[in-house]
């Protein structure tokens, strides 16, 4: 069995998770400090990819970075090609997975006890130190949970990915697009093998999420003593 789809899926999911991790934290932190009205509007925009059909996201991305679009032409000038390449898969997965990271991290930031930041400031700690050494560690569970969910979503991405990068064996094929392709070509056994692989990865991810939540609950209990 050609394991290219596994490797491709994992690298797309891994890279897009890292991108989404930082963008999501940045957006979440920024949004948690905005006035309520602006926050609500921004929230709708940033969460949209979660509720839109992935194919619509993919269509939108094609409109944006397609070979004949201004941004696509500009990127081509820079030597970046996102249509029908695995790098495009990273873009598609990032867009679709972003809301999960953003929303989970935002929840964690909003639950953060602001008096800790105030205490840090009055002790003379700089705002950067407070962000990385106090705020982020306190929100760690929520942020990790968000990252895991984003990774899982990126790994399972199909709609936007197939719109943007299609299915080229050995070049853009992911697990999700491979399962569809094999089923379509009546290779049920092959599809089943990839389904099994996918199930195994998903199970690991979900177990990890549950363990994180359990750890958080124990922590909460210990703190509430």
């Amino acid at each position, binding site marked *: 069995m050609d394991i290219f789809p596994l490797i491709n899926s994992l690298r797309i999911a891994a890279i897009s998770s890292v991108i989404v991790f930082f963008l999501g934290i940045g957006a979440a932190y920024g949004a948690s400090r905005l006035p309520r009205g602006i926050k609500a509007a921004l929230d709708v925009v940033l969460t949209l990819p979660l509720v839109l059909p992935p194919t619509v996201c993919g269509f939108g991305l094609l409109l944006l970075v397609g070979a004949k679009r201004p941004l696509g032409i500009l990127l081509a000038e820079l030597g970046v090609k996102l249509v029908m390449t695995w790098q495009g898969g990273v873009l598609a997965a990032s867009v679709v997975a972003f809301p999960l990271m953003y929303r989970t991290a935002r929840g964690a930031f909003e639950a953060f006890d602001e008096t800790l930041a105030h205490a840090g400031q*009055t*002790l003379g700690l700089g705002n950067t130190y407070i962000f990385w050494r106090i705020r982020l560690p306190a929100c760690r569970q929520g942020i990790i949970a968000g990252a895991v969910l984003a990774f899982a979503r990126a790994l399972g991405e199909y709609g936007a990915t197939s719109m943007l990068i299609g299915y080229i064996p050995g070049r853009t094929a992911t697990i999700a697009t491979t399962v569809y392709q094999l089923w379509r070509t009546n290779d049920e056994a092959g599809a089943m093998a990839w389904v099994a692989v996918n199930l195994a990865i998903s199970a690991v991810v979900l177990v990890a999420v549950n363990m994180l939540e359990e750890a958080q609950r124990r922590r909460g209990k210990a703190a509430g003593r």
Partner: protein
Amino acid sequence: MSLEVKIKKRLGAFLLDAEFETGGGVTGLLGESGCGKSMTLKCIAGVERPDEGRIVLDGEVLFDSARGIDVPPQKRGVGYLFQSGALFPNMTVERNILCGLRGERDAAVRRRLYGEAVRMMRLEGLEKKKPRELSGGQAQRAALARIWVSRPRVLLLDEPFSALDAHLSEQIQVELSELLRGFGRDALLVTHSRDEAYRLCGHIAVMHGGRVIAAKETRALFDDPGSVAAARITGCKNIAPARRIGAHEVEVPDWGVRLMCAKETGEGLCAVGVRAHDFAPGEAANRRRVVFAGAVEEPFAWIVRFRFEGQDEASPALWWRLPKGAGRGVFPDELGVAAEDVLLLYGEGCG
């Protein structure tokens, strides 16, 4: 320390409009919850920004909206002790305290201050513990150690006892007031408890509805709160509308009596107050016949409720606090109250 505060901040429908000055020692900011006292403290610390106004600490302008001055909290030199201690949960006690020393470059000084703080706040053996493993009192001491090493000019205490159990709280108050003396810093204490304020503060500013309605030396405030709101927050149980009828006499329609008072009545007098423990059967002044209306037993006192003879049954009964062992266990026919214990109340909170 000298602190001058004159700030305004709008929070939805609530308007904080605080103005007061303090001298040295421990000053209390006393008020019911939601009166704006914590917000005032946060504005002084610089973690909240007033809409307008001026804050001056020891001659240094920390905030002045007119001149565009807003010194960041890191540079204000204020130590802020929060209700819960606000220790950083991901760090040990030791690392928490060291956070207060990050501005200190000299390692020898860092070590010395750290050691002194641990000894002074009796944290030996707790240094490697995480905040969640500490008791409420230990957490407060660790927080105080962390503030002490950062050597603030002034200490801001935000309800530091209210998260503790009642019996612990009293013990820790006594302990903490000693530690504060050892701290050698002036302090501003925010509290809703008149007992705490009385015990710890030399001066008290009373806040009500976002404004400072009285600022006095502690004894003077309790002796003469001056307004209905201040009388209530300092624990006066018997307050009723009143009318001045002479230079030293008031009429209290709800109680159906006229009372003599030591202080001269002024224009705008709207109510009188009598503290529950100021009634006495042996007091000759303002002696009136009274009718028993009920009693509640406390560990060391009786709270007796009574009405004056002829007082309307519909109007609320008065409170008389009688320490156990003081009375003969028989309700007296008459109670009096010294003329200087009749509190004359004006302005704020009338009507």
